């Protein structure tokens, strides 16, 4: 283990160097550009033996990765926001063809209006594309998650693509202390990429991507769904092994002071870090505050969420995306649905915050707990969907 200072982008690029993929095809976009640049430099300096393809768009980046993965290569790319949106068509295809492409994705608001700062609208827009989605709180997690993702995605019971997100600028450009694993250890952890079939296996030719009509499409989609059902167990096992080998254990969700909490918030990404400070402060004042951090958004850890929130008195789901669905943001609706099957159904509210990189303050998070306190006391939810930090 080596302790260094790295931004989120640098940490993820470092992980990519250690993974040493066969093919990387990528296109620059703020705030993920650095990943592509740093990796290109690795290639130029001979630090990896990856074939790098400087494609002319993100659509082609994903298409080339899909081609490479189908040809039996370990393929990676990285992107953000509009880039991810441009890939949209190909995301579904990567998943449907069961190609375990791994992609760092820096969370950035989607146009319009155009904005380069963090929110989760890009990633959430791809939430039903069949990709595993891993959210990282900080650079260390981003680094660890990229490495674990290779194992998770390539697992024979899974074989799905996966994206690992960090929050744009907040983490992608924030310098933090990161513990890097030795190259050799990463190599042995991820292992060799083995595919059952490959397009380059000319002795065993096959056709991939045929027109799949009423009598087979459903079966293929059912297989894909099954792969996603299989994934939580694999993620847990990989997180466990990672913990044993490198000292940092990972699960689907992370609980912070949640065991005895009465008031809980649910968050994703870097806001978890800020929330810890607020919780510590509230705890000192005798308020039983806690947090549930969703690390894995896809597959959605509904059971774990329901169990963890079963004994709290009020819950607030904080989402850095609106969803513009007419009712509630994506994480809110899914958490709320998860609680339906729980032993108890605590009152639950939604907070939409931080769009387009709007900062969230300690006070604002504190105000969420204040509202939860009221709700817990009265058992009454005045307003289900709330906005935090927007000027009225």
């Amino acid at each position: 283990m080596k302790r260094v200072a790295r931004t989120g982008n640098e940490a993820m690029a470092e992980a990519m160097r250690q993974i040493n993929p066969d093919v990387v095809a990528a296109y620059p976009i703020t705030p993920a550009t650095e990943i592509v640049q740093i990796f290109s430099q690795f290639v130029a300096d001979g630090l990896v033996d990856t074939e790098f393809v400087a494609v002319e768009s993100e659509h082609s980046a994903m298409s080339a990765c899909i081609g490479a993965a189908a040809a039996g290569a370990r393929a990676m790319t990285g992107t953000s926001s509009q880039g991810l949106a441009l890939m949209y068509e190909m995301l579904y295809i990567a998943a449907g063809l069961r190609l375990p492409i791994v992609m760092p994705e820096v969370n950035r608001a989607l146009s319009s209006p155009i904005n380069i700062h963090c929110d989760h609208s890009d990633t959430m827009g791809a939430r039903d594309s069949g990709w595993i989605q891993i959210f990282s709180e900080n650079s260390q997690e981003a680094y660890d998650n990229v490495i674990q993702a290779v194992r998770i995605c390539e697992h024979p019971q899974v074989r799905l693509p996966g994206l690992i997100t960090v929050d744009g600028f907040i983490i992608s450009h924030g310098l933090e202390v990161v513990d890097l694993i030795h190259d050799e250890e990463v190599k042995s952890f991820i292992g060799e990429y083995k595919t059952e079939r490959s397009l380059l296996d000319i002795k065993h030719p096959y056709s991939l991507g045929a027109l799949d009509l009423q009598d087979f499409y459903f079966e293929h989609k059912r297989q894909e769904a099954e792969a996603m059902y299989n994934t939580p167990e694999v993620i847990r096992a990989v997180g466990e092994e990672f913990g044993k080998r490198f000292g940092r254990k990972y699960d689907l969700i992370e609980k912070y002071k949640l065991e005895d909490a009465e008031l809980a918030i649910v968050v994703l990404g870097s806001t978890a870090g800020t929330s810890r400070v607020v919780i510590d402060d509230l705890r000192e004042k005798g308020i039983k505050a806690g947090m549930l951090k969703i690390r894995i958004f896809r597959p959605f850890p509904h059971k774990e969420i329901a169990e963890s929130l079963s004994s709290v008195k009020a819950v607030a789901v904080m989402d850095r995306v609106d969803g513009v669905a007419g009712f509630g943001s994506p994480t809110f609706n899914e958490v709320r649905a998860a609680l339906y099957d729980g032993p108890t159904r605590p009152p639950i509210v939604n907070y939409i915050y931080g769009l387009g990189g709007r900062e969230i303050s300690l006070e604002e998070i504190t105000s969420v707990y204040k509202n939860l306190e009221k709700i817990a006391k009265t058992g009454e939810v005045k307003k289900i969907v709330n906005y935090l930090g927007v000027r009225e």
Partner: protein
Amino acid sequence: MATLKELSKRPERFTGGHRLCPGCGASIVARQVLLACKDPAVVTISTGCLEVGSTIFPYSAWEVPFFHSAFENSAATCSGVETAYRALKKKGRLPVDKEIKFIAFGGDGGTYDIGIQSLSGAMERGHKMLYVCYSNEAYMNTGIQRSSATPRAAHTTTAPVGKVIPGKKEFPKDLTGIMAAHKIPYVAQTAVGFWRDLTTKVEKALAVDGPSFINVHTPCRLGWGYQPDMTVEIGKLAADTCFWPLYEVEDGRAWKLTYKPKEKRPVKDLFNLQQRFKHLLKEENKGLLDEIQARIDQDWEDLLKKVEK
């Protein structure tokens, strides 16, 4: 340059049992391209008639590894496969260490229009692959809509012949010229109707060390409106009228005619055989027909100036 007898000894790599229309030019292109390639080949394709008609799960007409992912990205996908080949070869991880050729197919919709960015990118990056555009001059798979390859005045379902508008208003874009301007090692234009020209060009294209592009005029009996047995003849007429000249360009510089009609025939002879141009033969559209003929004559002269004497 292989003879028919030689070609007939090669394995058939595009099988019967596919579901393209009887007499479809695209199936002839697929067959002949694969016959011309002596090495193992991996094929990618864009969404369209050839893809849909040849691979309906669980039936595939391709004996070579074949991959379809979407409409606009046959070139980008192929570039990924080709890159994987280089990467895995370098690492000694290929199941068979034999030279493999990479061939991307696309219809004119998938090539001239929605896929031109992906094509241009892949060619510019220098991947060692052959891109074959089978141009049937419209989006046939979705029901004969216009593309930028559709000839002026042709009837399509999105530029139909109506009471006031006589079909497509624009002339097609010169995609072969655009590809030549990429100054890639090999660019060519050929047509169904000239098997020797097509197979020779495919051989040449696959022999260069870099990207190559072949644009094939590909009759479509359904979209063009003719009896299915006429496919080959219509292709020949396209060259004999100089509507679709056969030529090749090396490194974007050396232009060469590969077929010069003994007698240049009027384009009317070609249009006569196709329903999509039926209206052009009416007296009131004579001006339009003349305009098209004049354009063909001009393009032909321009081409003659470009080719090596």
